[in-house]
């Protein structure tokens, strides 16, 4: 595990940081938020990747748990970042989702349907539903934690 963190984990963190910051540029987020949102995205993706390595279950359950915890991490960190920079939360949590979000799977569903592989399309469709649902639940949990943190502080 330690070896994984210092090789693949480190590389994946850097990749996710770059991807999130660059996606932030595409979504036209304010420049002063780019760096921080990159780190929020990196934290979320590292959580997901680590859980994906550790969990001993089937792919769909790995996806569900990994994305759920990663969404909670992103939600809580975006809440803190939004409070720190006095900006709305979506400036941090929308770009940070880019590695997790089921965009690739949604396109694969259509592509496999069109090219005549309905069974594979079905698998990807299940993944789209699982990931999107789990991220939404993760954000709800994160909002709850953010409110708890806020009440503890006051």
């Amino acid at each position, binding site marked *: 595990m330690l070896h994984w963190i210092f090789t693949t984990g480190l590389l994946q963190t850097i990749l996710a940081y770059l*991807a999130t910051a660059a996606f*932030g540029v595409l979504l*036209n987020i304010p420049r002063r938020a780019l760096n921080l949102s990159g780190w929020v995205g990196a934290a979320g993706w590292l959580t997901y990747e680590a859980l994906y390595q550790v969990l001993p279950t089937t792919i769909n359950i790995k996806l569900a748990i990994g994305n759920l915890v990663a969404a909670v991490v992103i939600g809580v960190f975006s809440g803190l970042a939004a409070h720190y920079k006095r900006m709305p939360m979506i400036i941090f949590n*929308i770009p940070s989702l880019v590695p997790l979000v089921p965009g690739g799977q949604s396109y*694969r569903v259509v592509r496999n349907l069109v090219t005549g592989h309905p069974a594979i399309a079905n698998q990807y469709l299940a993944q789209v539903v699982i990931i*999107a649902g789990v991220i939404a639940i993760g954000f709800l949990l994160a909002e709850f934690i953010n409110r708890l943190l806020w009440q503890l502080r006051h």
Partner: protein
Amino acid sequence: MTDANLLMNTTLLAGAILLENGAEIARVEDTMQRIATNAGYPDAQVFVLLTGITVSLPTVAASQVRAIHQRGMDLEKVDQVNTLSRRYADHEIDLPAFATALAHVNQAVPTFPLSWLLVAALIVSVTLMVAFTGHATLIDLTTCAVAGVVGFAAFFAINRIGRIRFLSEFVGAFLIGLVTLISFWISHGHLHPDAIIIGAVMPLVPGVAITNAVRDTMTGNLLSGPARAIEALLSACAIGLGIALTSIFY
């Protein structure tokens, strides 16, 4: 109590900017309600759908509607509306100044020049291809970079020229497939087309829209959530079809 007409216009404009630039329904409703409350109408009724917003003030028996025809993603504008609404709540600016500032936000030009956007599309494509698939040979990296930039440039250009919906996604995806196909021929098949395409389509795919659809539905917006999902489904179809047209050849 302030001028009801100006208040309704300002509230609608703030809501419209938020909705047109990627905010969730709950945030739009919350912001509009706050503006009305701060202006002295705590009983204002705000009703937000994905395609139109309504605000009505029962005390003066007045209401207004505003239709929303296009939705994109521009978080800078969301941030600016948020800042303005916060300053209005702190009494730093009055309602007329708020209204003028909002109109200004709506016409503001994007902060990042086109060259930045193209570089960003390149970075998103290449980094996510490596992160998702682990393929990083030289030919994979270069093809993915070219495909990602070409696809996004086409997507951006068509969005600029005309408002034909889903055509931009389709053409962008088609060009990504074409670049991959050409590279496939040049390198005699020594590359991973699936990995390249999954990276290159990342700037275009409606992943955020799908997640927002679920989030909107979960906050009780049972009309807007599914509507967003259909919009996302159509753009996924456009991209999937664009890629499928060229993927027959390998």
